[in-house]
């Protein structure tokens, strides 16, 4: 099998693994990690497609490769925001649960930790 096929199939499985983790794991930081696993799976899939587009001496189609750079940086920005939200939730309530029942029990701190 050629490299794009191997890593393309690997990427498909990564999306599956990440999706399972995103649904099943209740801890928000691990949901963020799982979401990043899904994201990198999508990136690798696009990278495999870019590699198949190799032509005129270029190792891959530069248009999807450039979009990947954009995508990876934006994914980092989203992760940084998600982690900041999570830490703020932890500072405000002392827990990181996303369960609606548990959130009702937590006494609000008037918006300021």
């Amino acid at each position, binding site marked *: 099998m050629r490299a794009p096929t191997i890593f393309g199939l690997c990427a498909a499985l990564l999306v599956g693994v990440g999706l399972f983790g995103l649904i099943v794991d*209740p*801890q928000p930081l691990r949901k963020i990690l799982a979401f990043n*696993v899904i994201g990198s799976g999508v990136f690798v899939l696009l*990278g495999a497609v870019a590699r198949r587009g190799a032509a005129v001496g270029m*190792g891959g189609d530069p*248009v999807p490769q450039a979009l990947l750079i954009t995508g990876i940086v934006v994914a980092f920005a989203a992760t940084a925001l998600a982690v*900041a939200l999570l830490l703020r939730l932890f500072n405000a309530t002392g827990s990181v649960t996303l*369960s609606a029942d548990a959130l009702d029990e937590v006494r609000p701190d008037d918006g300021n930790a």
Partner: protein
Amino acid sequence: MIETLNAGVAVLILALAIFTIATRELFAAAVGFIAYGLLLTLVWAQLHGLDVALIEGAVGGGLTGVLVIGSAARLRGTQVTASAERLGASARAAAAIVAGVVAAVLAACVLALPDPAPTLAPQVAANMTATGVGNPITAVLLAFRAIDTLLEVIVLIFALIAVWSLAPDGVWGGRAGPRYDADPNGILVYFARILPPIGVIVGIYIFWVGADHPGGKFQGSTFLAAMWLLAARAGLTDAPPISRVWVRIAVVAGPVGFVVIGLAGVVTAGAFLAYPAGYAKPLILAIEWALMPSLALTLALLMAGAPQRPGVP
């Protein structure tokens, strides 16, 4: 031979992803994720995307890794409460089926990709001489798809504003994160003194060669941000209060310069973000020079997080 290696890397990456998802320890999951992100750079190298490999190693493995390991350390005690909310067996089975179906459909798509593959590489090669840059990725990022890059840097600013707005009212305008203190004779402080001069030069070099070789402003600015982060974690420097005018000006200066050059294109070349013939390369370099410091600062401040202390002690 190389195919066996590729298959080995693919299996290793899958194993690390499964470990990251399946391990019970939050901290172990974060460590697994960092190893996973660094191994992905090998995949990018094998897929002939050296520019992508650089950004994956610097951002995907590096910055994201520091971010998750830092928060995993702070959230260590929450592990127990979270595992009490674990889904039932039937819900887990349903999730496994959904994930399996999605993976199977994607795998089928990979196997059904058209041959010969559609590609824009010939068009890029044919028009690259007009831009004057030698790295096709840079030509795409700053000439053919410059609007994507412009929107991306604006997204980074929006993310930073969103992170800042999480500050509690009392410390709005203050400094991000705790003030780090490290043993002045410890190994961390030693590294934080030795490494930044080298790292800054590497970062500027990667930025500098980006016009003609793999590299560029995103990869280079990540290096600079990482070096600042190292010095800050060692207590050698501190995050600036976000109310400082210079911080805000520095964050938006690069994107504003990008927009100004883009608007100038309306007059000189007849379209937003178009470059007049013969001036493409100097304008692209001007945009890169303008973006580099703003990107480095924005990435560093995103890593630092929401303000937690008053700006004036």
